[in-house]
C-alpha cells in the first residue's frame, strides 16, 4: 500500500500521525509506504494548529518524526509543492492520495492526474474558519466510482487561486489566513472516516462529507459520476 499525503499544514500534520498509527498496528497490513509532500517550512506562526516536533522543512521533519514512532511503515518525503509534471513521478496506478492542501488549483491538478489512472483513491479535505468538507474520488478499472473533485465543484474545475508552486515569495508569505485548529482536526478526522470506509469496508457510496462546527452538524452526499 502506497499512500501519498500532499500538504502538511493544519490538516495534513495531524492526519499523517493518525493514519500512520492505525496502519502501523493493523494486524493484517504490511508493506505500507507513506510519502509526505510539502514545500513549506514549519515556523513559529504554525505552532497553534500544526503538529511537528521541531522547526524546519515540514516534509522532512515529519518523516523523521513518524519514522521513529512507527517502525513498520516505510517513509519518504518530497520537499516541494506538487505540479502537473511532478505528479507524473509521484502518484501511480493503485496509489492512495490524501490531499490536504490550502488551494483549489492544486486540488484540480491532482484530481486531473488521478483521472488518468485506472485505479486510484483520492481523498481531499478543506475548510473555512468553522466549516469544511471532504471529497472522495475513487477510480476502479479505468472508471470513476465516485465523481472527481471537479465534477460538482466549479470553483475547483476553474480555480481562481494559484498553487504554491506558482506563487512568488511575497505571495507565499501573505498566503496564510486565520484558521481554527479544531476545524483542521475535524477535516482530518472525516478524511479518516473516508479512508476507513473505502479501504477497509469497500464502501464508496458516499462521495462527499460536509460539516459545520457552528451548527454542530455533518452530512454526507451520494452523487452520480459524470463519465
Amino acid at each position, binding site marked *: 500500500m502506497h499512500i501519498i499525503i500532499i*500538504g502538511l*499544514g*493544519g*490538516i*495534513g500534520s495531524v492526519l499523517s500521525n493518525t493514519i500512520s498509527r492505525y496502519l502501523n498496528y493493523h494486524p493484517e497490513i504490511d508493506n505500507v509506504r507513506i510519502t509526505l509532500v510539502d514545500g513549506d517550512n514549519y515556523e513559529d506562526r504554525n505552532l497553534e494548529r500544526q503538529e511537528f516536533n521541531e522547526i524546519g522543512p515540514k516534509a522532512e521533519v515529519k518523516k523523521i518524526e513518524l519514522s521513529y514512532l512507527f517502525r513498520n511503515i516505510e517513509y519518504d518525503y518530497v520537499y516541494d509543492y506538487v505540479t502537473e509534471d511532478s505528479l507524473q513521478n509521484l502518484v501511480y496506478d493503485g496509489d492512495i492520495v490524501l490531499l*490536504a*492542501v*490550502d*488551494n*483549489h488549483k492544486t*486540488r484540480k491538478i491532482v484530481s486531473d492526474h488521478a483521472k488518468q489512472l485506472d485505479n486510484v483513491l483520492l481523498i481531499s*479535505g*478543506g*475548510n*473555512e474558519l468553522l*466549516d*469544511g*468538507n471532504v*471529497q472522495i474520488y475513487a477510480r476502479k478499472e479505468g472508471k470513476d466510482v465516485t465523481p472527481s*473533485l471537479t465534477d*460538482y*465543484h*466549479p*470553483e*475547483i474545475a476553474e480555480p481562481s*487561486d494559484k498553487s504554491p508552486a506558482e506563487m512568488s515569495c511575497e505571495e507565499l508569505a501573505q498566503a496564510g*489566513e486565520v*484558521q481554527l485548529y479544531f476545524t*483542521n482536526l475535524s*477535516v482530518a478526522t472525516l478524511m479518516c472516516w473516508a479512508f476507513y470506509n473505502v479501504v477497509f469496508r469497500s464502501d464508496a457510496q458516499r462521495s462527499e462529507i*460536509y*460539516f*459545520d462546527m457552528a*451548527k454542530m*452538524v*455533518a*452530512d454526507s*452526499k*451520494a*452523487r*452520480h459520476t459524470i463519465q
Partner: protein
Amino acid sequence: MADEMVFDRDDLEEMTANELREICENMGIEMPGLNRKRASALVEIILAAQEPELAEGGTARAVKAQVTAVADGDEPPMARIRVSCGASSDMFDVVGSSVGEVAGLLQDALNIDLTAQGVVNGQQVGNDHILEAGDELEFLKTSGRKG
C-alpha cells in the same frame, strides 16, 4: 363554508391553515391534534375525506378510517422531501415546486447561494426541474479552500 362543497387540490393548496381547519370542522372531521397540523397535512386529510367511493357510500366509519390513516403519520407519506445544502438539511413541503423556487424559499434557512447548482437524487438538474414525492434535493456548497 358549506360542507357539501367539493374541493380540488389546487383550491385547497391556496388556502391558509385556518381556512382548512374550518373546512375540516364543517365536514365533521375530528381527530386529535387537528389544530396543530400544517396546511399540507390538512389538504391531504380533506382530500381523503372527500374520496367519492367513501362519501357516496355514506360510511362515516370508512371516511374516518381513511382520514385517520393519513393523520397517523402526522404528515401524508412522501409529501415532504429532504433538502440540503452543505451540512444543513431538513424536510420541507416542496413537492411540485421548481428547484429555483425552493432555492429562493429556503435561501436563509439553509444558507443557499442563489447561484448554487441543484442536484436531485444525485443528478445535476436545472432550476426549472419540478420536484416529485420521494426526491432528495441538494444545493451544492463550495468546497473549503484552506487546510
